[in-house]
């Protein structure tokens, strides 16, 4: 029977407090870098460019009816662009005393609250395009694949700093599996 009391977890004096809510709220929610939207827009443009070009060529050479397809693709692109801007602006996160909380989505909202003590490991990932815009994504893994959160679109230095902070807090607040 251990006699020593468990150590009090040191809380930052200036740490944010308040209820975690699905939307709004008093906590200092932080948003991700707007470059993420740019990166996703470029990806979308690249994906759509080829079929768009194909429809234009076919429309010019074969039949003007294919312009309908072009129109469809343009509308699809516009809708995608709108969606991306909405999605990216809906991602917000906050570091609490003992948890990292990530909120995502507007139509389908989700919130995940990952205790630092449960972190198994943290990945930093960045593709060439993301790197060109100086952003990286921070993937958080716990013992359960479904509870990991990913935090895309952090400035690279911030992602690295976050990783270091998470690792340090994971160490001091470590809690079994």
């Amino acid at each position, binding site marked *: *029977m*251990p006699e*020593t*009391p*468990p*150590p*009090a*977890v040191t809380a930052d004096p200036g740490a944010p407090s308040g*209820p*975690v*809510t*699905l939307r709004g709220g008093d906590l200092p929610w932080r948003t991700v870098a707007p470059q993420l939207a740019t990166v996703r827009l470029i990806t979308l443009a690249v994906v759509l460019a080829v079929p768009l070009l194909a429809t234009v060529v076919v429309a010019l050479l074969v039949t003007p009816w294919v312009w309908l397809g072009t129109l469809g693709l343009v509308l699809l692109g516009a809708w995608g662009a709108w969606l991306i801007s909405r999605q990216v602006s809906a991602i917000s996160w906050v570091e609490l005393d*003992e*948890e990292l909380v990530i909120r995502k989505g507007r*139509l*389908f*909202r*989700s*919130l*995940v*609250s*990952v*205790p630092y*003590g*449960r972190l*198994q*490991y*943290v*990945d*930093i*990932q*960045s*593709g*060439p395009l993301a*790197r060109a815009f100086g952003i990286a994504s921070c993937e958080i*893994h*716990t*013992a*359960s*694949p*479904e*509870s*990991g959160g990913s935090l895309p679109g952090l400035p690279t230095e911030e992602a690295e700093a976050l*990783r270091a902070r998470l*690792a340090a807090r*994971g*160490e001091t*607040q*470590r*809690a*079994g*599996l």
Partner: protein
Amino acid sequence: MTTPGGAPDGIGTVQDSEDVDGWQRLHPLSPLLRGGVVLIAVLGYAVSRLVDSVLSSLDPTAEPDTGADYELAWTSHPLLALGALVVVIAAVAAVGWVSWRFSRFRVAAGQVELRTGVLFRQHRQVRLERVQAVETTRPLLARLVGLSQVVVQSAGGSDSHLTLAFLGADRAEEVRAHLLELAGRSDEAARPGMPPAAEHDPGVPVGATPRAPAVEPPPLVVVPNGRLFVATILHGSTIVLGVILLGAAVTVGVAEAGLAVLAGAPALLPVVFGLGVSRVKELLVHGNFSIARTGTALRVRHGLTDLRVSTVPVHRVQAVEVLQPLWWRPWGWWRVRVNVAGVHGGDNDDDETVMLPVGTADEALTVLAALGAHPEDPVLLEALHGAGGEHGWVGPPRVARWLDPWSWRRTGYALAEHAVYLRTGRFTRRTVVVPHARIQSLGLAQGPLQQRLGLASARLVSTPGPVGPDVPHLAQADAEELLELVGRRAREARRLAGHPLAPGHAPLVDFPQNDPRT
């Protein structure tokens, strides 16, 4: 380019080819081996063709290769072919070299880190105390060149493994031993007085010696095969099938139309067959079931034809589910399943996740007690039998009936001292117990319909397994409150668990003797 020659050539030490920060490189052949058989086959083929054409064109007296007609024209010139060969080899070597240069790992500051990738960079780190097991494996190709890979397993599933591929065989063993030693030390520190887990424990860290119990303890529960047989037949699918067949038989007796139904019967055969197979398999797997307690583990014996014994250390159990299909209710039967850390919810893991295939309420409570729950707790009984509205239970508001017309009344959660109780299902009753200390993380989700109705679903995330602790369709404020309340309990439980001397690895729900408050 900096040469790796700056590193001391201490062959056989863990420190070789180490740079300033302790980063070490993998074996230079690794990128080639990671490319796998296909890459090597393609390369080998291309190179052999090129060499072939170089040789044949250098030797004018040689008979023209029968395949020469198919050769591309440019390969017929020896210099061009030679050049192409050199370029290909150089390109592969360059890509491999760059890839090798960018793959580094280190063991430092209590964690293993691996950096890979040139274009898509990845940096993965696993804390040593998170390491469940370290193994070295030797795929065929690697074996041919005497290399091994070290797989560092943590609890998050195969995605979360950190693979050091490849290292020289000796080196791999050294790294493994080194990691085991380090991980073992932190594991020991975290688990004082905990006897090593038994031999079937998939995640036994590191050199824990298997220990067989001297005396076989008497089983807690033995499931009679007759009851199992009845329970297996009483399954939704067999009942639906029975009703269809009965209906057909009746209509055959009553009217001509029945013949048409009968004529359609062969179409049902595959369904019947599949069903039969699944039922028989269930019977084979869970036959002769008995569960016993050995120290800190539960020993489950089962199998009608081939007896299997699995040992589930209680401290690895993350969540418990007790469920009762509608058809079992007249008999008062229940099934108990668990999520076990390190065991994933595939079909073949049935033997380690079912703690009681079918049992009476008393037997289910016995098993729950063995798993550490408190069977005398009135909340548990409410969780099993309650229909909704009990004191202390928080459930969905009335408006949730639009999304869940049957079960919204029964759905809910209640907080007990050591665990959260969840219940759902009006027909198939489901009760989940998750100890505060075992909650991985918490989540909320809200779809568009829920948004309109002001509802949100909460989820207490557990490790992978058959049990999914969810509370659907709570009022949004209640869901946020759950996050707050359960979060606070989980925090307190983690503080106890995080302390190296606290009973952090105590069984599921703390046994009274492990509870520092008693």
